[in-house]
């Protein structure tokens, strides 16, 4: 499943994974020894509602190719956080459009602690998008 790529600067993918759902979900994928591309970097967050619009845009400016916000969805332990963040993302998408960034580079999803298949799907889909938008640098 999946391929291992030597990551290029443009195709690094950040996963903002909630500590109570998606982060243990990523660990669960590891426990299952299910391989996925190595350009994926998981950052543990308490709740992604912490990040302002600027954080996402800065990440893209720094060269991050795609960001998946892996939230708890309806299981969110912070009541109202998911809604507040979804609203913020609408504004982030507007700003991305203004800057000419393809909005498919940023995706919000919910991943549970044992959602291995969903996790791998999300990662692979974002990889396809990132590769499509910025083709891998040719090997010398």
């Amino acid at each position, binding site marked *: *499943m*999946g*391929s*291992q*790529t*030597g*990551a*290029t*600067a443009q*195709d*690094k993918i*950040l996963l903002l994974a909630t500590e*109570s759902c998606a982060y*243990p979900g*990523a*660990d669960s*994928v*590891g*426990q299952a*020894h*299910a*391989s*996925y591309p*190595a350009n994926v*970097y*998981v*950052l*543990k*967050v*308490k*709740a992604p*509602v*912490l*990040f*302002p*619009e600027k*954080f996402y845009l*800065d*990440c893209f400016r*720094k*060269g*991050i190719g795609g960001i998946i916000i892996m939230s708890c969805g309806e*299981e969110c*332990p*912070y*009541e*109202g*956080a998911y809604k*507040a963040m979804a609203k*913020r993302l609408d504004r982030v998408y507007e700003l991305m459009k203004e800057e000419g960034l393809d909005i498919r580079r940023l995706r919000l999803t919910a991943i549970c*602690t*044992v959602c291995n298949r969903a996790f791998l799907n999300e990662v692979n889909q974002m990889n396809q998008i990132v590769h499509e938008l910025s083709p*891998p*640098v*040719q*090997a*010398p």
Partner: protein
Amino acid sequence: MSEPQRAKAPDAGEQAKVGVYICYCGGNISDHVDVEKVRERMETVPGVAVARTNMFMCSDPGQELIMEDLRQGRINRVVVASCAPSLHESTFRSAIARAGGNPYQYEHANIREQVSWVHHGQAATDKASRLIAAATGKARTLTPLEPLRVTARRHAVVIGGGIAGMRAALDLADMGVRVALVEKTPYLGGGVSRLVRLAPTGEDAAHLVTTLARRILEHPGITVHAGSAVTTFGGYVGNFTLGVSPVPGACAPAGETWPGGYVPGKGVLVPPSPDGGAITLETGVVVLATGFASYIPRPGEYGFGENAEVVTLPDLIQKIGGLEGQRGGTLVIDGRPIRSMALIHCVGSRQIPGIHEEDANGHLNEHCSRVCCTSAINTANAIREACPQTSVYELYRDIRTYGRGQEELYAKASGNRVVFMRFGADQAPVVQRGAPGSGHPLKVTVTDQLTFGEELEVPVDLVVLATGMEPGPVADLVEMLKLPVGADRFLLETHPKLRPVELPIAGIFLAGTCQAPMDAGETCNAASAAAVKAVSLLSKGYVELDPFVAEVDVRRCTGTGACVQACLNPGAIALETMDIDGRPVTRARVTPALCLGCGACVAVCPENAIDINGWTLAQYEAMVDMIVSDAVCQDSGAVPETVGA
């Protein structure tokens, strides 16, 4: 909740000296990540004072590496790169504290579950390097924090009044913790009440249940809420609040027995509770002892539901009881002589995708239920010894009589001339009506591996299905308490060896068969373990919570109030007038005890004047910078390498 105490002011001025410690995990990491190469790379990262490796960082010598560097003043921040932080973050924080460091000046890099177990070769080494570098980027800016200390109620709620719940409740109460035991039926006893003689010792189940239940009912430190269920749940370790309400229809039939009396198959009837209605329990810890459910065969599975002569092993045990009055001849059940009977093992256990049929919810029980082999053989021995004219056939896939004294039962069965036949998972025995005139209502056909695949036909009067253990019906509690559930649908401990009765949710413990199939002895072991863990948590009278809550930089705050509006827990942040540089100004102030630590306030502050301690925005930015940086390793330029899952 009491106001948390904050001991030390953050010491931000000190120069960061980060120690990086990279674990081989005995090959789990080093088989895929070139750990020494990563160490060399880390030595070049700004702010890193030392970088070391060890075969097992969690071992005493591994921890000692960190502690010695701290004691010698070589480092003041720690990054450990090893397994998932859920396993050993607390181990390393505690080592830092023991060496006099601040346990919160610590960052973890997860290079096993999120690197070596999912990536291979150069890509794994490079990703590990970037992740650890990112962790150092965060660690450099970590300030010392003190845990939030909150008072813990010296009280436990035990959910479930079976043998696990009773054992845990007694152990807790004997150690001076007040206990509320919540049981949804009117009886104490659970699954053991449905048994008669416990293998392998032959202990009387009724006596065991009665002894425990009487001690519970007489114990001044235990209140039993029978016929009740938990309906609401809130709070956190040390300060949980549970709503408990009567279960509609959960009352014993009038005149069935007297309170305190034992009803076979049900347990000891609990006297009605004086409060009766819905109540609220305030507690420090919760012990889950919700038990298991017996597998109920599908209609038609081995003829179940279609033939009255096909029963489950739990049903047979209740029907024959202690075999009173059945001595020396043929077993008689419901007036019918049983001259020949077949016990079929692994019914509803060890199910294999593609061979066995899923239940209505698409589930298969792929686990071994562990207790059924011994239970079936124990029953066969009892029948053969009491009723030698009854022939007993055991049809099994594998025999797993694994515990002390259980193998002896298996050997005894041979001595008792129980006949064993072995079938393959894909060659299940077939139960059919017996041929007219055969004198037996049923026949079982089996391809017997012990006679090298011979097809044998056994005429029988009774077929007994050794049904397995399934997770109990606790979906409501799983939802309410956000409990982790394993692939087998039993409740899932944090770690099977390191934290075997704990959950990731602090203050909630597992006791018994809610966690996995266990026999009565193992269940009591687990329950006592849970009780001791719970008592040790409550023993200090307070619990410490991670101090990851919002804090306002009053020098930057301009009092816009955006954080107050964004706050998801009203009251956690408020605008206050305070005196700064001799001028009264309006600034935001956080009440740490109420702050959820979600960070909703952080994103909206136009002045970047509020942050979550230990999880600041600047720290995330530093991590991203290190991930994209080529300082520790160059991007190799895509060399795709397909790897099997």
